[in-house]
């Protein structure tokens, strides 16, 4: 997959403005960036493409001086560049627009911009400059408006103008379109194109393939912290980009010959608004999971994963017959009523959702096991039973911890996740729903958890695994479906599922019907070897 198209020759001639060589950044248990190198030149919109957790954010935070690399070096305009802080980065001409804005709603635009400046000019002068910049770059914005009255797109303009006032050479944009309407996206793209003609470099982070193909001149693709490819995205199809993003070494599973059991749980036509601000609404969901199978649900975070888990766990209620356990309508049941019936769940956030951080493992065992493990009689908790359950989980799932009396937050991520998954599996669920079961875990812990999910399905339980890790889903799931902006694609057997089909299900085409408008390469020549 790693190859340089012929049109690349011209690109290599001009010296790069920003060059990154052999960058490495490790956190306990995970290497976020591993030997990352890329070069970007002036007048370029340079995409950093990858799934969540691929290391894009770590990379740009390093460039912006928020993180210091463990190894490797950076060059800016031919000189060594090692910013100790964002202040240094701004001095050197690097600015960044974050995904989440840091603005005060009760202040007006000019005041907000002034707050971000080292030496703000007088207000009247600043307002004039804001007006100038907003006209020059086609970003309509009134400096006297209160930020609280602005839309998400207008707020982003405040952040962009705040950066542009510093006249940066490099502008980093972290998932800028995730909060924008299509019209606002169009305006943003015009601005970015104008900045490009002025010779600025824009580092553009996204996982939206069509967007990158429409805007970017060059793409560096990251996966699991490593650069897996670089290309001119305009010369590639969305499918090819998705393949590089997903990884060319993606091991397709050997044919699974498992007899599908009866339908254990089904969702029919469920639509549910998110309980959280900026949440994703689930739209017209259909889902069926059978005994003995693992249904894998892929997709990039923020596309309704948390909402789907809440709807299944009972934290979010719905119409009674929108969810059926066998023939029993359970949509209106709460978490404990569902647990009594054998529907268990393990949420993504280990600390603060699956467990209470400051409580002991004994107490956290009672958190989900109280009903099914008979820990409560006549209102009183039998702490002996809770301790026994916690100790059973610790022993069976190899949770490395001094004892069941340890508080949840003193455990490492992998150990806590083993506890969380084990706590549910040892309650012998009929249906188990897990969200991102191995996120951020080292390989050994992740493998142990996957094996335990396979074993559970082997014992005849129905398992739903929601995950961003496609390798994982291909390895363990029987059928595969993708969650995209709250919609679930039609599930497909993972046996014989090709990379291009996965790419299509994930890569911006929400479902196959809507995908017809997408520019699709001819499948006959789409082997990846044809020259563009």
């Amino acid at each position: 997959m790693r190859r340089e198209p012929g049109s690349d020759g011209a690109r290599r001639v001009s010296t790069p403005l920003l060059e990154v060589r052999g960058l490495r950044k490790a956190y306990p248990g995970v290497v976020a960036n591993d030997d990352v190198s890329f070069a970007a030149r002036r007048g370029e919109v340079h995409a950093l493409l990858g799934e969540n957790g691929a290391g894009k954010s770590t990379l740009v935070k390093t460039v912006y001086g928020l993180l210091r690399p463990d190894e490797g070096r950076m060059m800016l305009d031919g000189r060594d560049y090692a910013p100790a802080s964002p202040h240094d980065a701004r001095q050197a001409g690097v600015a960044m627009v974050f995904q989440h804005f840091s603005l005060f709603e009760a202040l007006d635009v000019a005041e907000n911009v002034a707050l971000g400046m080292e030496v703000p000019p007088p207000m009247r002068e600043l307002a004039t400059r804001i007006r100038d910049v907003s006209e020059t770059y086609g970003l309509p914005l009134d400096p006297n408006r209160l930020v609280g009255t602005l839309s998400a797109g207008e707020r982003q303009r405040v952040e962009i103008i705040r950066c542009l006032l510093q006249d940066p050479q490099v502008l980093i944009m972290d998932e800028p379109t995730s909060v924008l309407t299509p019209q606002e996206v169009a305006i943003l793209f015009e601005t970015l194109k104008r900045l490009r003609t002025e010779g600025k470099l824009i580092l553009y982070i996204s996982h939206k393939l069509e967007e990158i193909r429409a805007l970017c001149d060059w793409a560096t693709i990251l996966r699991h912290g490593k650069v897996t490819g670089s290309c001119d995205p305009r010369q590639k199809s969305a499918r090819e980009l998705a393949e590089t993003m997903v990884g060319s070494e993606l091991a397709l599973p050997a044919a699974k010959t498992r007899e599908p059991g009866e339908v254990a749980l089904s969702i029919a036509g469920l639509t549910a608004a998110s309980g959280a601000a900026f949440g994703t609404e689930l739209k017209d969901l259909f889902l069926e999971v059978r005994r003995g199978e693992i249904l894998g649900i892929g997709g990039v975070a923020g596309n309704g994963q948390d909402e789907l888990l809440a709807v299944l766990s009972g934290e979010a209620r719905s119409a009674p017959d929108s969810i059926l356990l066998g023939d029993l309508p359970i949509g209106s049941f709460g978490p404990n009523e569902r647990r009594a019936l054998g529907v268990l769940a393990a949420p993504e956030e280990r600390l603060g959702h699956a467990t209470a951080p400051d409580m002991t493992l004994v107490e956290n065992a009672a958190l989900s096991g109280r009903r099914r493990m008979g820990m409560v009689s006549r209102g009183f908790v039998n702490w002996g039973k809770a301790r026994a359950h916690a100790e059973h989980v610790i022993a069976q799932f190899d949770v490395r911890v001094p004892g069941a009396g340890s508080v949840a937050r003193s455990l490492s991520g992998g150990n806590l996740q083993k506890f969380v998954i084990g706590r549910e599996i040892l309650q012998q669920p009929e249906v188990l729903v897990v969200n991102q079961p191995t996120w951020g875990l080292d390989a050994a812990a992740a493998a142990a958890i996957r094996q335990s999910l396979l074993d559970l399905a082997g014992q005849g339980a129905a398992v739903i695994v929601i995950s961003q890790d496609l390798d994982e889903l291909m390895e363990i799931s029987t059928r595969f479906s993708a969650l995209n902006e709250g919609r679930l694609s039609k599930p497909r057997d993972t046996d014989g599922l090709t990379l291009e089909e996965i790419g299509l299900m994930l890569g911006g085409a929400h479902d196959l019907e809507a995908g017809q408008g997408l520019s699709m390469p001819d499948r006959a020549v789409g082997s990846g070897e044809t020259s563009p």
Partner: protein
Amino acid sequence: MIRLERRPAPSRAWAWATPLLAVLATMVAGGLLFAFLGKDPLLVIRTIFWDPILGEFAFYYRGQLLVKAGPLILIAIGLSLGFRAGVWNIGAEGQYIMGAICGAAVGLAFYPLEARWLIFPLMVLAGGLGGFLWAMIPGILRTRFNTNEILVSLLLVYVAEQILAWMALGPLRSPDGAGFPGSRNLRHYDSAANHELIAGSGMHWGVVAAFIAVILGHVLLSRHILGFNIRLAGASPRAARFAGVNPGLLVLTCLGASGALAGFAGLFEVAGPAGQINIDFNVGYGFTAIIVAFLGRLHPVGILLAGFLMALTYIGGEAAQATLGVPAAAIQAFQGMLLFFLLALDVMTNYRVRIDARARA
């Protein structure tokens, strides 16, 4: 550079040490305050903490200790349930007033009927109900309209004070009182009086209720599923929802329980030590109980001890006012400092101080 670093697990040693250190720090800072006021700091502190228990007139003060500690403990136990769950009832003072009014009104309605077996229990029930219903106002406003229960419960204290004044001057005013404000004295009406159970000890039914509340509170929090849900909701609201806790119901339960206990405290006070509904009936037990709850680490046994300590500062404070001329406001500031130091030192339970040789590059 000095940094605060989060401990991997909360420190048990610090959790127990902070109340003691807070008392010590309060004595030091309070001593400075008294010194600035021109008083001998050691003498004032001895008058507050030592004389009521072991001084010359201790025989008088000791009875007062139970009288003051009883309502503080009873209210603080209720508040601690809410505080554990992240439900901030700051208006116990108002619930205390409303409990006293409701309970006293029931007693006065039966006057002069002699039937203690009927009237006194009815008064107790009415007192609890009065506090419960007054606490339901912020509860329902929060669960229905997402208002802030801190503000609503606090502001309702001032409404309750207005109702108290109206009752003392109007509906509940004693017909035999020659036009003076204030109801009949319940202590002179045997069927309704909350008498001392042991003469001179200060022990009355309210103190008994406080001790029962300590025991029930301890059992609830350590053994009962409701207590577990309360602790879980306070520790991690999202995990509580995952555990199947209904957040709205929990808010109402906590506010209702703390309101009812404050109402009981008000009833026992008005039928006993205070004797009558009057304009100056409330003396701030409802607010001081907040300090008691935190000083006791929101733990029933801790609250028992903290209740006695705060009762001591009340009694000793009054003694210091009377004998040494320390202004009443200085005593209140002294009590407030206790909460301030406690909360400040509490940081050490979850964090430790790290001193770096140089700032991190």
